[in-house]
């Protein structure tokens, strides 16, 4: 990374930090203005995190790396019952096993 790129990264981090702070104070500011959030808007807001995060999961699963897809399936099975730390461990063990013993 050259220094111009690095400076840009610092700006991106600062802008993202400002955006994050906005979300952390925004509800306080809004609640002072608005009595009630319309139900459809609330449904849309509720969906935001799952919608955004799904776009970071699905492409990795369908990227064509079968070892990654298999590890993600193992992690999914573990994640239905256990915390995300166990998911990470199970997925990591699965991919290491595939890479060192199968391929």
């Amino acid at each position, binding site marked *: 990374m050259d220094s111009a790129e690095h400076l840009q990264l610092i700006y991106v981090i600062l802008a993202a*930090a400002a955006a994050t702070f906005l979300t*952390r104070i925004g509800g306080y500011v809004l609640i002072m203005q608005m009595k009630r959030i319309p139900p*459809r808007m609330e*449904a849309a807001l509720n*969906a935001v995190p*799952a919608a955004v995060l*799904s*776009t970071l999961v699905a492409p990795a699963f369908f990227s064509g790396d079968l070892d990654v897809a298999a590890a993600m399936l193992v992690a999914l099975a573990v*994640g239905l019952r256990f915390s995300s730390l166990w998911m990470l461990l199970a997925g990591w063990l699965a991919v290491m096993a595939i890479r060192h013993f199968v391929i």
Partner: protein
Amino acid sequence: MTKDDFWQGVRGGFPVMLSASPFGALFGALAIENGFSVFDAVFMSMTLYAGASQMVGIELFGNKVQPWLIVLSVFAVNFRHILYSASIAKHIRHFSGLQKFFAFFLLVDPQYAETEKRAERGEPVTFAWYLGFAMIIYIPWQMTTLLGAIFGQLIGDPHAIGLDVLLPIYFMGLVLGFRKRNNWLSVVAVSSLASVAAIHFVGSPWHVSIGAVAGIVVAACMPLEAQDAQSGAREEEV
């Protein structure tokens, strides 16, 4: 009294700190992996202080996504905080302006949850307690980021030691965490399909916004009566 409250907060936040620490280290290591310097990684932890969105940020940065879209995605992932700050408002009304500023800056998920619980129990939400709880999480978050980043610099080939699967699995865990919400399965299915289609037909950075918008639109268009019935059923389960 104030001192007692502070240390009570520190004790309350201790288990949260323990469970967040591996993620701090993971963030540090993966940030290096995605082209950050050690300084950048710690700088991001200090200024954003929002684990999931920090992971999203480094993932998108590593994929050379446009800066505005990185900022927008971080904003989107952190959007839930708007609901937190709205609902916490009544408990911290007595904080001074400056105290509120710090309180909102430090408003991470467990901080929100514990503040609500404490208020519900009828115990006073003092600034000293709030700060104690926050500091035992905030300061170790910086230290574990630093350790992870230094360790990350020593790693040769991330593929060989399986580091490349950790981010998608981490995000999958977050998606699973929302599975009690209304319309969850429809949103996840539509966003996933739309993002995969968008990668093929439009190209890499855009799949995030296209996929996200598709899922959000679906949630907004779902029949509201059905949602009420669902949330009723959900409460019965709990």
